[in-house]
């Protein structure tokens, strides 16, 4: 394409593609004032403040809607322009209240800045100010429409990026207000896009109301959201070591999320400030916790672990790291267990599901990670979203899928056994019977082959793999699958046709697949589906497994697994043990260790005597709460690191107060293999210390000193973990890196297997099992135990924002099921299973399929583990607890 030569304020500019005047001016550091323009939104050209002068044109033109052409000469601050701009400001200020002293936007307000710059405070009009009451319809926001400049950015971002279209501009002219339908905000998901995009103070956070000013912030840190595994870049602002608020990237360019956040990230920020934080090490004496000090507590832990190790052997000790710990901490813990303790009994909470996806992708393609990147999904022409509610579990991935649908016209197939909030964007919804996920995927593969829609060229090169997959899928005819899943055969064929004919097409899946029986085989079947349709190795194609928590992928990557060393090297490989043992100057144990579920069972059987739990709330997160607690109590010694007195910490012999993500450095690896740095925004609270420092202290006391400073640990990881080779804190500056990193290209890998798949030789025969019906006569319902958009466990229970929207657990039920049982909205129901019962209010929700009860997994008083049992899947040893048969009655 020919370059375009233009001149802006006398500065020559070369543009490699056509763009508007505002963007072109940005190239040479010139800011053209604007309210309504936003680079990610459609052009509205309604605010008229971006008027600029173009040589040869009689009138000023709007800088946002005028595309630069060759030879154009523009003046953004000429006399004529300034006069026009003053005129617009004068009209804006006609109605805008002069309440800057009490407006939270003061100091970062576009209108204030422009009025300050151009000085249009005097008006020639005599007109009354608009009087519009402040709108409190939204639990997290207040809308002050007197301050609105009618730029409609909130309306457009809600519709175009968030895809929810909750707001609209009601009425017109000077009476226009940005409102939801009759003030009903029930469709709002509280992402705060409107808040972050309001150029003035018309939309404000109720959490941040009169909390601070931009110049009040003393520390600002660009960091990564600690909640889900989308790994969003955000900025924490603090003052005097308290988090003030979270702000998102205004340039809409950084990280995986590119400026977007969801309610958890944007409003769930105040748990580090909580006065429930643990502040000092606690040691249990005679059944009561006694405050201790670091030296004493560390020495006590080292002594007890050493005693148990010499009395019962190293394999009597196990360790688990939670989903919110950094890569460095997971690395230190596994190294501590393998060297200082001498066992492979180390696991992380990706065992709750994600590990099945990683094992399957490794078996299929040779790399244990998502094949593509999140933003790529927007390029897909078809998306199969299965067993994952991207709108609530991984909202930023959800945005990429919505972008594919809204901007790219992609077809979205939503397959789920339960409620799925992405359904409204779908072109097809497949509601399968819980447990029959595998049959559905096999059915899709069968249908693809049956109509020859598979990639024939690829088949020619991979005949044996294709033959194997074809044979495996042979029995899953549409009729058979229809009987098993409850989906009409025609729908299965239609979905297969849509998916196979779209190029590229991608798959997004999560715990609805991985945390069920045969999660490994089902994940593998999805990998096969991506492969036979020729989507692997293509931007916008591939297969994207969704981890639940920020640290899950990374903990697996760096070897916090009982059968894998850092970089997924097998414990059983003598060569890898030798290589690592050389680096760590230690002989590494050769027997694979226990997974978290096995550890708890072994604790119950008395075989495991001590556990070291870092940031995992086992007594809450694992299924079968009653037995889990019972078993953990049988341990001779339990050490827990946590930020709060969690259910597990209460059972511990020693509790160490840990630092939150806001107080420490480190890295998280998100679902798309992107390693990203977190940075401290405040000093350590109370007596808390980073988990890595605590682990290193215990290790040193046991005779194996370790460096714990995160930057140093990452250098060690890059040596010991082949997939992290070349990754240091320097290479991670500026948005992180998707492993593997290539030094010569100074870049990570956005799309794996672009050169073709190499790992298929290791193909496995794992099947998808028999999706036996879960619901029966005694327990006619299936509980769909899953996350809510507003919560994620111990942390969000201590945040104000999410609790202002959803403060208690509700059992979501289909209207027909509820009326059949005489249950009305808000009635207390008893959800009973073979292991226990829960009592909670019902929420009548037509998005919940009939026969399913939607149970949120993270409220203190309603613990979902009460109604599940500990059943470990044979392949991945993952607890099978996503769906559980229950009976529901009115209390």
């Amino acid at each position, binding site marked *: 394409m020919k370059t375009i030569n233009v001149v802006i304020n006398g500065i020559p500019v070369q543009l490699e593609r056509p763009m508007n005047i505002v963007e072109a001016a940005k190239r040479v550091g010139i800011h053209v004032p604007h309210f309504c323009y936003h680079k990610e939104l459609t052009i509205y050209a309604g605010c008229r403040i971006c008027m600029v002068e173009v040589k040869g044109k009689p009138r000023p033109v709007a800088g946002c809607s005028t595309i630069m052409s060759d030879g154009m000469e523009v003046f953004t601050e000429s006399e004529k322009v300034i006069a026009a701009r003053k005129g617009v400001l004068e009209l804006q200020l006609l109605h805008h209240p002069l309440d800057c002293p009490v407006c939270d936007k003061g100091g970062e307000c576009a209108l204030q800045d422009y009025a300050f710059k151009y000085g249009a405070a005097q008006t020639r009009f005599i007109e009354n100010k608009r009087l519009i009451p402040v709108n409190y319809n939204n639990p997290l926001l207040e809308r002050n429409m007197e301050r609105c400049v009618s730029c409609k950015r909130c309306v457009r971002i809600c519709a175009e990026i968030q895809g929810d279209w909750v707001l609209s501009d009601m*009425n017109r002219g000077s009476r226009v207000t940005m409102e939801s*339908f009759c003030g009903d905000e029930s469709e709002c998901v509280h992402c705060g896009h409107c808040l972050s995009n309001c150029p003035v103070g018309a939309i404000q956070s109720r959490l941040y109301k009169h909390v601070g000013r931009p110049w009040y912030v003393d520390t600002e840190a660009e960091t990564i959201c600690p909640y889900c595994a989308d790994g969003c870049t955000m900025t924490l602002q603090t003052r005097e070591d308290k988090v003030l608020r979270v702000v998102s990237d205004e340039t809409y360019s950084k990280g995986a999320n590119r400026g977007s956040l969801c309610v958890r990230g944007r409003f769930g920020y105040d748990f580090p400030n909580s006065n429930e934080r643990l502040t000092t090490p606690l040691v249990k004496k005679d059944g009561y916790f006694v405050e201790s000090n670091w030296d004493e507590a560390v020495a006590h832990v080292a002594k007890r672990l050493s005693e148990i190790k010499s009395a019962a052997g190293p394999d009597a000790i196990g360790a688990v790291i939670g989903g919110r710990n950094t890569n460095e901490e997971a690395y230190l813990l596994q190294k501590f267990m393998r060297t200082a303790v001498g066992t492979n009994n180390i696991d992380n909470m990706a065992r709750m599901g994600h590990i099945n996806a990683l094992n399957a992708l490794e078996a299929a393609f040779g790399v244990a990670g998502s094949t593509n990147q999140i933003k790529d999904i927007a390029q897909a022409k078809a998306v199969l979203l299965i067993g994952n509610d991207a709108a609530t579990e991984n909202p930023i991935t959800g945005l990429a899928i919505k972008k594919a649908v809204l901007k790219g016209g992609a077809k979205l197939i939503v397959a789920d056994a339960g409620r799925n909030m992405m359904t409204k964007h779908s072109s097809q919804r497949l509601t399968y019977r819980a447990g029959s996920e595998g049959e559905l995927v096999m059915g899709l593969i069968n249908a693809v082959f049956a109509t020859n829609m598979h990639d024939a060229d690829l088949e020619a090169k991979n005949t044996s793999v294709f033959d194997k997959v074809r044979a495996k899928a042979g029995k899953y005819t549409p009729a058979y699958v229809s009987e098993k899943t409850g989906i009409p055969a025609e729908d299965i064929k239609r979905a297969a046709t849509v998916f196979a004919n779209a190029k590229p097409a991608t798959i997004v899946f999560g715990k609805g697949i991985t945390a069920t029986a045969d999660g490994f085989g089902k994940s593998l079947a999805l990998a096969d589906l991506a492969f036979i349709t020729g989507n692997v190795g293509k931007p916008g194609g591939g297969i994207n497994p969704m981890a639940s928590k920020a640290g899950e992928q990374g903990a697996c990557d760096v070897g916090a697994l009982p059968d894998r060393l850092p970089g997924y090297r097998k414990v059983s490989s003598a060569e890898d043990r030798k290589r690592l043992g050389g680096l760590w100057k230690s002989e590494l144990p050769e027997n694979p260790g226990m997974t978290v579920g096995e550890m708890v069972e072994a604790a119950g059987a008395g075989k495991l005597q001590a556990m070291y739990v870092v940031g995992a709330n086992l007594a809450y997160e694992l299924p079968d709460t009653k037995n889990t607690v019972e078993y953990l109590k049988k341990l001779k010694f339990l050490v827990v690191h946590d930020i709060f007195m969690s259910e597990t910490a209460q059972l511990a012999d020693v509790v160490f107060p840990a630092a939150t993500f806001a107080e420490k450095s480190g890295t998280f690896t998100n679902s798309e293999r992107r390693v990203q740095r977190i940075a401290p925004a405040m000093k350590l609270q109370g007596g808390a210390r980073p988990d890595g420092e605590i682990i290193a202290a215990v290790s040193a006391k046991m005779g194996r000193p370790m460096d714990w400073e995160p930057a140093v640990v990452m250098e060690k990881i890059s040596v010991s973990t082949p997939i992290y080779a070349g990754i240091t804190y320097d290479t991670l500056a500026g948005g992180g890196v998707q492993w593997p990193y290539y030094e010569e290209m100074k870049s990570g890998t956005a799309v794996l297997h672009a050169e073709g798949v190499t790992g298929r030789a290791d193909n496995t025969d794992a099947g998808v099992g028999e999706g036996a019906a879960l619901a029966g006569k005694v327990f006619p319902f299936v509980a769909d135990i899953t996350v809510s958009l507003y919560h994620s466990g111990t942390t969000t229970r201590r945040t104000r924002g999410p609790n202002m929207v959803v403060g208690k657990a509700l059992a979501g039920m289909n209207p027909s099921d509820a009326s059949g049982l005489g249950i009305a909205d808000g009635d207390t129901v008893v959800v009973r299973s073979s292991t226990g019962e829960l009592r909670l209010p019902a929420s009548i929700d037509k998005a919940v399929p009939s026969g399913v009860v939607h149970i949120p997994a993270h409220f203190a008083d309603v613990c979902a583990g009460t109604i599940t049992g500990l059943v470990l899947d044979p392949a991945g040893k993952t607890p099978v607890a996503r769906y559980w048969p229950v009976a529901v009655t009115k209390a």
Partner: protein
Amino acid sequence: MIKLSDKTIAAIEENATRYPDRNSVLMFGLWKAQEELGHLSPEAIEAVAEAVRVPRAKAQGVATYHSLYWKKPVGENVIMLCTNVACTLMGAETILEHIENRLGIKEGHTTPDGKFTLQEVECIGSCGYGPAMVINETFYFDLTINKIDDILAKL
């Protein structure tokens, strides 16, 4: 929740075939619903949004933008009198006062018997023939007080 009649739904569907984008039917749908229901209550707007398959907030935004969509119940005859510059110069204010006195209501209101609603409107494109007004779908111009009395008496 209001259900639109099959006839209105059919009209919306028929109209939808004329445009490449279904959003384009929204204004027509609102108009048809108003014809059927008399005015556009929030429930009616919601029903149209569902029929046209657009977000309900968007439908309400469009309905509240245009003054010819009645958001409140109106009388049998809606008097829309222009009070812009040209008509006012020709005496629209006197006409308005006269109608208000005759009907015993203020602008923006409906008579207790539900027969008339009186509304001031912006320019109706008849500056050469002012004062001008529209009642229902009939246009009246060169208005005088006598002429108004004649017109209203016949309705």
